[in-house]
């Protein structure tokens, strides 16, 4: 009874007084690293885009592949993971009445493990011993220190995942019969972070002895498969983080309500169960995989489209309902009633809109035959810049305009809001130009993961040049966008006037039906996920191991 009372007052105090300074420090540290990563990673992206367009020749000590590897690692691993964790830990703190002291300790241990791992991985990249890109496919081999760094990053992520599980389990013990509040999304993300990173942990532990030369060869197909079981899950973890903001916070920002708690939870559950199996479509034209397995995987990949379509419906429904309450009329006229001048809405809205072509491209390239048109071309680079660089990162930017002031005990000023709107427009134009050019030049055959080449003045290769020029213009605008965004974050964290900022959780509809308790059965969702993963991966992995071709020694191709 005493414990329940204590929890009740802790909940009340947390909601009234805002986040505790200890919890705020955790989120602030994660956000600082995330935005430092986008500053450096963005600059490297600009260099890379200029080089790819044939405008800038990089010096030998900073070649294209080194820049590409660092750009990928900084933005794909550091920015996304640090933002996701900082954001969800603030959410856990807000909705669960603060973080437990031991969870805080775990968050810090995880933070430093990730930083340590990242430093270990970056040293060989800078030395030119690990230009293996973000996917680090064998038989390309980096210096062993690179892989040891990755081990520490994964261990850090696990520390954070278990910290979240402990905090949620403790809350559930003290709130029997109640629904996990907004932290439902956090549970989904951390479950996926843990289970999704298991395959890559196995892969890295298998690569390390090979990179040291203790074993001579490696099974390339097994390592590729283990990588993509993780790689695509990571993509969907960012996506799930972004949609958590769409479902929970955006409705509050536009003075609306959440559309359906049950639908939201079904989307989270579906994404958790079906996510890991989606990775295999990255190998859809790999050799040594039977057609029947490939078709099963095409279906499994396309299945992820269903929760995305449910999300599209839910979001439009929230917008329309809210806009009509404000007097919006007509088939599309109600859109005018949405708060377009508020960056906290504008940025996530454009992020959602970008997901329409991004999702469409994803569906197309996951299809067995159509993948052959786009595979390993610049189309794929355009696709993931549209999904990650627009849908996810612009949502993160939108979130930063309330999350950073919330954890800093400051407020969003009109000037910074205006700057944010300008930043959103600059970023949108930049990404449309860059990603559009990448998609189109990819369809014309321009390959990805290669520095600029005219292939001995080949006519087809020369025809790509005008599009690559648009890529460079887009990249330049994006760099301006990075500078504006980093300034805005710096201002909101250290310079903005002190004050109280709300953690904007939207309420459900007044006439909403109660959410059934079966949605809370995380054990069942995890069992179903493991079942589906086994169905997807046991047959091909056994096949790759039993009928293994001769393994490959390490290669340094750069």
């Amino acid at each position, binding site marked *: 009874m005493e414990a329940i009372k204590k929890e009740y007052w802790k909940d009340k105090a947390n909601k009234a007084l805002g986040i505790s300074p200890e919890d705020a420090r955790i989120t602030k540290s994660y956000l600082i690293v995330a935005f430092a990563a986008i500053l450096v990673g963005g600059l490297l992206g600009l260099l890379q885009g200029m080089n790819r367009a044939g405008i800038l020749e990089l010096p030998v000590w900073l070649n294209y592949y080194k820049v590409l590897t660092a750009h990928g690692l900084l933005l794909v691993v550091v920015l996304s993971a640090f933002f996701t964790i900082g954001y969800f830990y603030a959410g856990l703190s807000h909705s669960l009445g603060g973080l437990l002291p031991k969870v805080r300790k775990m968050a810090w241990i995880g933070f430093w493990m990730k930083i340590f791992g990242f430093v270990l991985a970056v040293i060989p990249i800078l030395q030119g011993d690990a230009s293996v890109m973000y996917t680090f496919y064998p038989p390309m081999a980096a210096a062993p220190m690179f892989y040891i760094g990755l081990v520490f990053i994964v261990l850090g992520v696990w520390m954070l995942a278990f910290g979240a599980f402990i905090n949620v389990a403790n809350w559930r013990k003290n709130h029997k019969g109640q629904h996990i509040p907004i932290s439902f999304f956090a549970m989904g993300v951390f479950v996926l972070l843990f289970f999704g990173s298991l395959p890559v942990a196995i892969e890295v532990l298998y690569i390390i002895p090979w990179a040291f030369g203790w074993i001579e060869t490696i099974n390339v197909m097994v390592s590729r498969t283990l990588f993509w079981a993780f790689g695509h899950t990571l993509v969907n973890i960012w996506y799930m983080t972004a949609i958590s903001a769409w479902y929970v916070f955006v409705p509050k920002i536009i003075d609306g309500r959440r559309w359906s708690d049950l639908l939201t939870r079904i989307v989270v559950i579906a994404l958790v169960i079906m996510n890991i199996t989606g990775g295999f479509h990255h190998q859809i034209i790999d050799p040594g995989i039977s057609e029947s397995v490939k078709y099963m995987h095409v279906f499994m990949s396309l299945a992820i489209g269903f929760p995305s379509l449910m999300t599209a*419906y839910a979001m439009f429904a929230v917008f*329309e309902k809210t806009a*009509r309450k404000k007097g919006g009329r007509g*088939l*599309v006229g*109600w859109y005018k009633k949405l708060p377009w001048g508020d960056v906290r809405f504008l940025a996530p809205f454009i992020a959602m809109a970008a997901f329409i072509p991004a999702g*469409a491209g994803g569906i197309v390239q996951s299809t067995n035959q159509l993948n052959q048109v786009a595979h390993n071309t610049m189309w794929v680079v355009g696709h993931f810049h549209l999904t990650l660089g627009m849908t996810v990162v612009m949502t993160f930017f939108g979130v930063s305009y309330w999350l950073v002031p919330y954890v800093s005990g400051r407020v969003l000023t009109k000037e910074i809001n205006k700057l944010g709107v300008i930043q959103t427009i600059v970023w949108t134009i930049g990404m449309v130009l860059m990603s559009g050019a990448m998609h189109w030049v990819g369809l014309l055959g321009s390959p990805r993961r290669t520095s600029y080449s005219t292939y001995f003045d080949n006519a087809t290769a020369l025809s790509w040049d005008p599009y690559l020029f648009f890529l460079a213009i887009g990249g330049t605008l994006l760099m301006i966008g990075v500078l504006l965004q980093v300034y805005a974050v710096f201002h909101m964290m250290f310079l903005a006037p002190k004050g109280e900022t709300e953690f904007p959780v939207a309420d459900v509809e007044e006439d909403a039906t109660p959410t059934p308790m079966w949605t809370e059965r995380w054990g069942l969702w995890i069992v179903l996920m493991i079942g589906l993963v086994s169905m997807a991966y046991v047959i091909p992995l056994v096949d790759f191991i039993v009928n293994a071709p001769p393994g490959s020694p390490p290669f340094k191709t750069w």
Partner: protein
Amino acid sequence: MAESNVKKSEEVAEEHSSIKGTVFSVAVVGGVIFLTYLLVYGLYMARI
């Protein structure tokens, strides 16, 4: 007069609960998926 007021308030209530904008927007999403598919399928067929 009273009848027209009732009619007007019915129209407003209908407008408030309308989901035609949502259905239209979701149809746009479907259209983009279909057109993208058609474009790449056309290229695929042209190249085989």
